[in-house]
């Protein structure tokens, strides 16, 4: 019996039974949330290890032993199709979710409505896990909606402050419009090809690439760029991520924009469309958006005075790097440069999830202990909160890309591939990094400056907030010590597996 179904069943069980468990009291509720997310992390590691050690896709059919119907050669049931990319992201999602839940034990202690909070955070994790393992277009839409609705509600969770409500409303309208675009694309694909399974769609589109499939791809790219916060439509991100509670900001910035945006874009582009239409044009579109995002996001980060808003704009900038890597991977499909760029993008997704989670947890600790996130009032924090400041130092150094830490290797892969492909793109990427450095150095000077009045009485937060930060620091440093081993052992096989569309198709419909 496969362990894969428990990746969904355990968080689902946890979320559904949360109202009953919370009748037993506050302790039981927190313990249940931690237990469920820890078990999910265990299952995710097992699934990742299985896929990684065998280098085989896991195909799991819901409701039968085989996806194909009786006496026919097309899939009729929903199926899960997990390749290394999906398994890797599932691991990261489970890990960051676990950290965020431990962190919120203390961070959210003074809020009301915590029963709903833990339900929603488990559902958010469930939605992302569902997206990364699914192999069916409509099922992808359903889980995208689960993830989105949970995050709308969590952004506006503190309903007694106007920032949260305003940010929640903006996020909800933009996100629902994007979901509608994606649903329209799925409807068009069904109308033309009569199936919803991703791998069989790939076969059908390769046989008959009509105009409809291209229009549907246009709708997918539009909707998913909305969801990932690329630049012309990044306004919701810079409002929603600072307004949410910090544990949620960490999950939103670290995971949601990647799983719901970039992962889905990559999966659709590589696994469905890669060989059937001229993928080069699509790649250049993504590169264009990536470059604009890179410059604007990082440049906007420099001029912010609100710490969480600075981090949110920095997230926009980092999404630009990832989009750039994926775009080069698409235009140079099948060459060595493309592989390097793709591996760099995947590596950067993982790294950025860890770094940005750490940074938002630091911001939350400061907000919780000092009560403000305005950088002009926070000078001299390092003397009062040395551990938190150290965590910030590590996170900032990693996101800028200093060599001993993990951000260096992934950024280096993206620079290297873009230099080989087109030096102009590399120049843009370096320019973005310069802006990024400026923004973080500014925060650093604030932290180590002369102590101001606001921070006089600040002290370190409690254990439940310190421990997740320490674990994340440890993860960043360990990943920084073995960058090229990780790149060779995990990221390059992931890129190769993602690129291997034939394997993805054959695993479902057999040796066609």
């Amino acid at each position, binding site marked *: 019996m496969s362990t894969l179904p428990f990746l969904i069943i355990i968080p689902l069980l946890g*979320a559904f039974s949360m109202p009953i468990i919370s009748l037993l009291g506050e302790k039981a509720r927190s313990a249940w949330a931690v237990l469920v997310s820890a078990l999910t992390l265990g299952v995710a590691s097992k699934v990742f290890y299985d896929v990684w050690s065998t280098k085989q896709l896991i195909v799991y059919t819901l409701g039968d032993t085989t996806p194909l119907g009786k006496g026919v050669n*097309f899939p009729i049931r929903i199926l899960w199709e997990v390749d290394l990319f999906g398994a890797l992201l599932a691991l990261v999602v489970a890990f960051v979710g676990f950290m965020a839940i431990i962190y919120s034990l203390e961070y959210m202690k003074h809020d009301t409505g915590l029963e709903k909070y833990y*339900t929603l955070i488990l559902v958010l994790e469930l939605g992302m896990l569902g997206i990364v393992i699914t192999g069916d277009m409509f*099922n992808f839409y359903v889980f995208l909606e689960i993830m989105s609705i949970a995050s709308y509600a969590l952004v*506006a969770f503190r309903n007694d402050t106007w920032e949260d409500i305003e940010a929640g409303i903006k996020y909800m309208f933009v996100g629902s419009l994007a979901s509608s675009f994606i649903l329209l694309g799925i409807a068009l694909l069904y109308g033309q090809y009569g199936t919803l399974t991703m791998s069989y769609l790939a076969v059908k589109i390769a046989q008959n690439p009509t105009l*409809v499939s291209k229009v549907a791809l246009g709708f997918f790219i539009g909707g998913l760029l909305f969801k990932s916060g690329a630049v012309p439509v990044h306004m919701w991100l810079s409002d929603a991520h600072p307004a949410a509670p910090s544990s949620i900001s960490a999950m939103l910035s670290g995971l949601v924009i990647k799983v719901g945006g970039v992962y889905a874009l990559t999966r659709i582009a590589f696994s469905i469309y890669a060989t059937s239409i001229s993928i080069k044009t699509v790649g250049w579109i993504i590169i264009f958006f990536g470059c604009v995002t890179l410059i604007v996001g990082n440049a906007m980060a420099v001029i912010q005075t609100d710490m969480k808003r600075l981090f949110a704009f920095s997230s926009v900038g980092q999404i630009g790097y990832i989009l750039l890597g994926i775009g080069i991977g698409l235009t140079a499909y099948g060459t060595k440069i493309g592989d390097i760029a793709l591996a760099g993008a995947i590596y950067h997704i993982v790294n950025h999830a860890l770094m940005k989670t750490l940074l938002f947890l630091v911001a939350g600790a400061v907000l919780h202990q000092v009560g403000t996130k305005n950088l002009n009032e926070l000078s001299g924090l390092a003397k009062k909160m040395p551990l938190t400041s150290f965590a910030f130092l590590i996170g900032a150094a990693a996101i800028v890309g200093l060599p001993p830490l993990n951000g260096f290797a992934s950024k280096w892969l993206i620079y290297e591939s873009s230099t080989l492909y087109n030096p102009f793109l590399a120049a843009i990427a370096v320019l973005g990094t310069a802006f990024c450095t400026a923004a973080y150095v500014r925060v650093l000077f604030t932290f180590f400056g002369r102590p101001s009045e606001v921070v006089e009485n600040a002290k370190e937060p409690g254990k439940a907030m310190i421990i997740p930060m320490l674990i994340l620091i440890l993860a960043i440093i360990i990943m920084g010590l073995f960058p090229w081993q990780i790149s060779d052992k995990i990221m390059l096989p992931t890129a190769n597996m993602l690129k291997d569309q034939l394997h993805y198709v054959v695993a479902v419909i057999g040796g066609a």
Partner: protein
Amino acid sequence: MKKALGALSLLFILGILLIVAHPDYGLKFGFGGKDWQTYRYTDEYYIEHGIEEVGGTNIVTDIVFDYRGYDTIGEATVLFTAIAGAVALLRRWRDDDE
């Protein structure tokens, strides 16, 4: 300027959708006979085999709960989430009296 740009992009989207809807370029309406077998093979499979494989005479329910049952549990989760979210958002504020 902004308004004109928005209107233009709206018209562009509508135009593309209408081109797609034209039978010569893309989608067709009302398949029958041989076309039905080539374009709606999955629906045909469900209509043929639904009763023996699942047992319900309502094929839509067979699909909703068996063939695509996983979608339905997702849908139930969406409902659960939205209601939890709505109840959480409509709870009392921290500084409300009573």
